[in-house]
């Protein structure tokens, strides 16, 4: 399919303006604390055009932290459904990938991939803010291709 000028402009705009929504799927709050400084003066994600949105309907990228508990499963799935496409999901930390130290707990589903498709994994317990920003940048590049 040939790329028109509008397609090119749209791809560029998607790469340069990724708005994120953060959902805590039963995290210990460690990863959420590491996401907060991404928007602080030291890391300032707004240079990359990243804005943190309060509504999933305004967001392009869904950041998920935590191992997906039984009680958060329906909420995560509903939030993913509410995001208008194109959308990309970033799993922040080891918990959404495997369940991490919570794996095997009776209240934890373990692994967010069973509910929503995950595009980017940011490993770490918790990952550093630089790693989270790298994940957001990769997700933005992925948005441009969707």
């Amino acid at each position, binding site marked *: 399919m040939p790329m028109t000028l509008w397609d090119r*402009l*749209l791809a*560029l*705009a*998607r790469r*340069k*303006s990724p708005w994120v929504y953060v959902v805590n799927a039963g995290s210990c709050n460690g990863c959420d604390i590491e996401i907060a400084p991404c928007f*602080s*003066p030291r890391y*300032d994600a*707004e*240079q990359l*055009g990243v804005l943190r*949105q*309060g*509504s999933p*309907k*305004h967001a*392009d990228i869904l950041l998920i932290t935590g191992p997906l508990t039984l009680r958060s499963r329906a909420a995560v799935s509903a939030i993913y459904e*509410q995001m*208008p*496409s*194109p959308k990309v999901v970033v799993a922040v930390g080891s918990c959404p990938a495997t369940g991490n130290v919570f794996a095997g707990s009776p209240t934890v589903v373990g692994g967010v991939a069973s509910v929503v498709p995950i595009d980017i994994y940011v490993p770490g317990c918790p990952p550093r803010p630089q790693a989270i920003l790298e994940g957001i940048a990769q997700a933005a590049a992925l948005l441009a291709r969707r």
Partner: protein
Amino acid sequence: MSSEVWRAGLAVLLWPGLVGGALLSWLYLWLGRKLLARLQGRYGPPFYQPCFDFVKLLGKQTVVPGGVNRLLFYGLPLVAVISVVVALALIPVPGNPARALSFTGDLILLIYLLEMPALCDVLAGYGSRSLYGQVGAAREALLALGYNLPFLAAVIALALPAGSFRLVDVQAVAYGPVHLAATLAFLLALPARLKCNPFSIPNAEQEIVAGTHLEYNGVPLALFELAHGLELVALVNLFAALFVPLPAGVPGGLIYLLVGVGLVALTTGLAAATARIKLHQAFRFYWRWGAAAAVLAVVVAAIW
């Protein structure tokens, strides 16, 4: 006749209407975000950021929430954008091709058109079936009752010595004390009109998420963002056209740009330095100090 239609169309679509207004609004919006970032010790977004935000929102899927009227969902942001674009075309800025078409009462029409985005916001909030949207709409409607007192008084105070509600007549009034008093009233109303920080009550993101725009996404959200940017440009142009003296020999466009940069710096600095106040505090502020400034402006206009 046909040349008049052409000129009006040019003013609405190109300059100072849709295209020129949008480009200028992206410049002012970026300036505000960059200045806020620098004041907070951050680097801030690149200059093309507001433009890319708009293009991205245009290219996203639009989800109409269940139980919401489709016509209302798409129509309200469209009405807001069209109103502000026509308002922009009415203001006698340098190079406005419709300047000669100014008619008696166009100032009143301008005031009505500038009121439309806030009205559309309120209706969008009530029509979105979201609790946060309804709270935001109620807040915005009440705040409008506050800031419109000094805003309307400032414009009417300038129309009194002109003896006319025609924009070019009001613009032609010799600069005097009435302009200073009206400027004071206008500047008091500006931060609340733009929903900047001490008065960011209708879109308080920590309290009611995104307020009236909560359920909006994709193209309608892009149009609401565009309407907000265009409203900023319209207020800047109105202020520069009626409240600021144009010194001879200086290109008019430069004065308008300087006024825009000054107003953006003023509201951004205020937003960075203050925290959000409560609705009743904002209302009391406007019906005490706003009313004082309004009375002052009208009294000065009546005496001089």
